[in-house]
């Protein structure tokens, strides 16, 4: 769930960041509005809006409702979309900072060898930016991964949900929650470890 949500979110984030840097002013404003709005609203509220609000927007029997139910049949899918939207906003910030941090001389060098704007973005900006943003990217990925525990609010069978079920079914409250906490901890450390390893391997000194 985290993987899908974050993958889609990364795509959104990259797209928006490039839009924000290179697109005309109205588009930039829209992107900034999207980022600011999503970042200042709790994830839980976004989930509720999507999960409860969308079915209400398309009354029963309408063609829209069929589409909504086809794309977002259950809580898990809805949560992935919500997480993708949320992640996209945060990642746009990070990628924008990354794009701005690319030194001008690289862009000029790219222009000098005849790269178009797209080529420039693809061959010069992206590699440099990706290496530069890796630390804050990994931080954000970890915290977004932890946010998947919120999916329990729309009855997605998630780790937190399982812990709650165990604690209420068997009354082993503390063991259940400490076990869940340990699992999260271990996973976060594992992700951090992998990302740190990646950082070291493709370390770029500008």
């Amino acid at each position, binding site marked *: 769930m985290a993987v899908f949500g974050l993958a889609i979110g990364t795509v959104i984030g990259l797209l928006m960041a490039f839009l924000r840097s290179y697109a005309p002013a109205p588009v930039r404003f829209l992107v900034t509005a999207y980022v600011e709005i999503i970042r200042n609203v*709790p994830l839980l509220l976004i989930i509720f*809006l999507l999960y409860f*609000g969308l079915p209400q927007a398309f009354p029963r029997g309408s063609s829209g409702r069929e589409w909504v139910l086809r794309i977002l049949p259950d809580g898990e899918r809805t949560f992935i979309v919500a997480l993708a939207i949320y992640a996209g906003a945060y990642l746009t910030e990070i990628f924008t900072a990354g794009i701005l941090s690319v030194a001008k001389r690289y862009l000029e060098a790219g222009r000098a060898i005849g790269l178009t704007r797209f080529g420039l973005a693809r061959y010069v900006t992206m590699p440099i930016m990706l290496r530069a943003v890796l630390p804050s990217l990994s931080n954000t990925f970890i915290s977004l991964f932890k946010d998947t525990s*919120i999916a329990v609010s729309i009855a997605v069978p998630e780790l937190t949900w399982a812990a709650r079920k165990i604690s209420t079914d068997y009354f082993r409250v503390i063991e259940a*929650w400490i076990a869940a906490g340990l699992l*999260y901890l271990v996973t*976060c450390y594992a992700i951090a470890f992998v990302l740190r390893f990646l950082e070291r391997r493709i370390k770029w000194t500008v």
Partner: protein
Amino acid sequence: MQVVWDNAHLMWNGLRVTLELSIVIIALSTFFGFLVGVGLTYGNVVIRFLLRVYVDTIRGLPLLVLIFLIFYGLPALKIQIGGWHLDTNLGRFETATLAFTLFASAQVGEIVRGSLGSIPTGQTEAARALGMTFWPRLGYILLPQAVPSMLPPWTNIAAELVKGTSLVTLVSMSDLLFSTRKIAERTGEMIPLYLAAAVVYFVICFTISRTGAWLGHRFETGTVR
């Protein structure tokens, strides 16, 4: 849209709880966060180790798991102190405050540690040369230089805390989101109500983050040459 105005007083009650919770948590966690940060930077090995374990554990857990752990786990603890049973069944508000303060103090502690670490060591040496002991040094020299660099991330955390208080909905505490949800389920008008709640959250958090950006500009310290 009419339904929003009809039930505005209920949402206002929820908003009051959210604001109370947020303010208390921000105040408490700033205070404890300072202690954590100072301890992490200047403590002896034992203190540093304990605080490191605390901070890393808290930052590896989702906020929701922490909330559930404290909400459901704390009353389940049966602490006996010499035959006298310690009643760990706190009220709802206090439990939420405890959970969030634990979470936020770790974050603030990290910020404080970063800011304190960025002060050139020459300052500490000069203060020591003037005969200052630890606490005066901290209060008069180090903290005033650390605070400007702390302000933007701190306002970030404050905004995140306000958004995080929405999670208490999942333990049935009557904050803004919970009230909105109850009204929405009662009336069936989901979108207007949730959008209204979103607007309220947006206004609050946007104000906080803009204030943070303004503060960051206002207290911007140039680089030391």
